[in-house]
């Protein structure tokens, strides 16, 4: 294990350190590297879409297989660029692809998404609240009451009767526990990203620890 001799590794390490320098103090190198990142990632998105999808659609589907109907969606996609025209008779055409995508998107929301994110969640809450195992029983009760309380917290157009007021309050507490859990997991996740970079710097670059890909 020794320090890397690869130019690419050194440059990569330099980029990483430039970003970290920005954490300590905002500086021009940090901003420069950040702008490189924004540019390259936008460029890469274009290149990989063209390479992996747009090009083969034209060369294979249209020219080789003669599926000329695919010219229609290509045209729909291209219409989006009319928004950059100043001519009012042309630039409204960019709404056609938007309408096409929103139409299909809304259809998916109404069918698949509603089923998965609503119906399946409702039926999963049909839990027996009496069980021989007291632990399961408590869990199920907390779950059902918790879901109902959080739902009741989000009523805006009518007030619950006096006695039922405890539910929205309880719902808020349950949510706070949920957000706490979200915080705990976020710590793990963010530290992981830093960890990955440190493993690269100490491993691939400086050769102090085992390398990672």
């Amino acid at each position, binding site marked *: 294990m020794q320090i890397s001799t690869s130019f690419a590794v050194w440059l990569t390490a330099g980029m990483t350190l430039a970003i970290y320098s920005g954490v300590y103090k905002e500086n021009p190198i940090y901003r420069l590297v950040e702008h490189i990142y924004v540019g390259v990632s*936008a460029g890469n*998105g274009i290149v990989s879409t063209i390479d992996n999808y747009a090009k083969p659609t034209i060369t294979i589907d249209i020219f080789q297989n003669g599926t000329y109907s695919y010219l229609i969606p290509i045209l729909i996609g291209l219409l989006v660029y009319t928004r950059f025209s100043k001519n009012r008779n042309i630039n409204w055409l960019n709404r056609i692809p938007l309408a096409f995508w929103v139409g299909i998107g809304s259809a998916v929301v109404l069918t698949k998404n509603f089923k998965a994110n609503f119906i399946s969640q409702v039926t999963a809450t049909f839990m027996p609240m009496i069980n021989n195992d007291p632990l399961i029983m408590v869990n199920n009760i907390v779950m059902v009451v918790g879901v109902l309380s959080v739902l009741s917290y989000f009523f805006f157009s009518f007030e619950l009767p006096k006695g039922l007021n405890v539910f929205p309050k309880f719902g808020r507490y349950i949510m706070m526990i949920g957000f706490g859990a979200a915080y705990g997991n976020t710590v793990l996740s963010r530290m992981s990203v830093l960890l990955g970079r440190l493993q690269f710097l100490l491993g691939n670059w400086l050769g102090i620890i085992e390398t990672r890909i």
Partner: protein
Amino acid sequence: MYRRTIPFIISIVIGLSYILSGALPEISAWKNLLDKWFQISTAFAVLIGAISLSMVHFRNLRRPERLIYSTTLIIALYGTVVLGLIQTSKGELYQTWYNMTIVPLEAAILSQIAFYITTAAFRVLRMRSLEASLMLIAAVFVMFYNVPVGAAVWQGIPVIGKWLMDIPNTAAMRAITMGAALGASATAIRVFLGLERSYLGGGE
């Protein structure tokens, strides 16, 4: 008038026929075709972000304090695209460039948050109220449920952490998910009823 009506009719016809052909196996070919069309049309609209980005940064070229950054961004963007079109994304030079820039920068930029989250723990997570305290306590248990030191200190930590994740957190997130699903459906319904046209942008 037609500038708004035609797009609106398109979204209704496409959307409703998509739902219908998904429901009737006999005409599911239409849905399969639309799936493919959706993919193709998004693929050919891929330049839109880059164009908006370029417009902002070409405008910045006139501002001396932004000149160097915007020039860098434009060169990085178009350099990558040109290199990718000449070499394809599998070319050796492209791959090297990509591995040197995107791979480390993506992670390095996001990992800055590790630093911010640490200072936030010191500065802003205060037990100002019962609610904030509940949040903080849950956060501590879940944090130590996730790492080995938790169990090493006390076996109860992972048990409580898992319970908090599995029961109260699931209940809260489930209700929020349901609410969001209802909200999303209502938005889709408004699209089909013609009440929601913000997606068409401003103007006439």
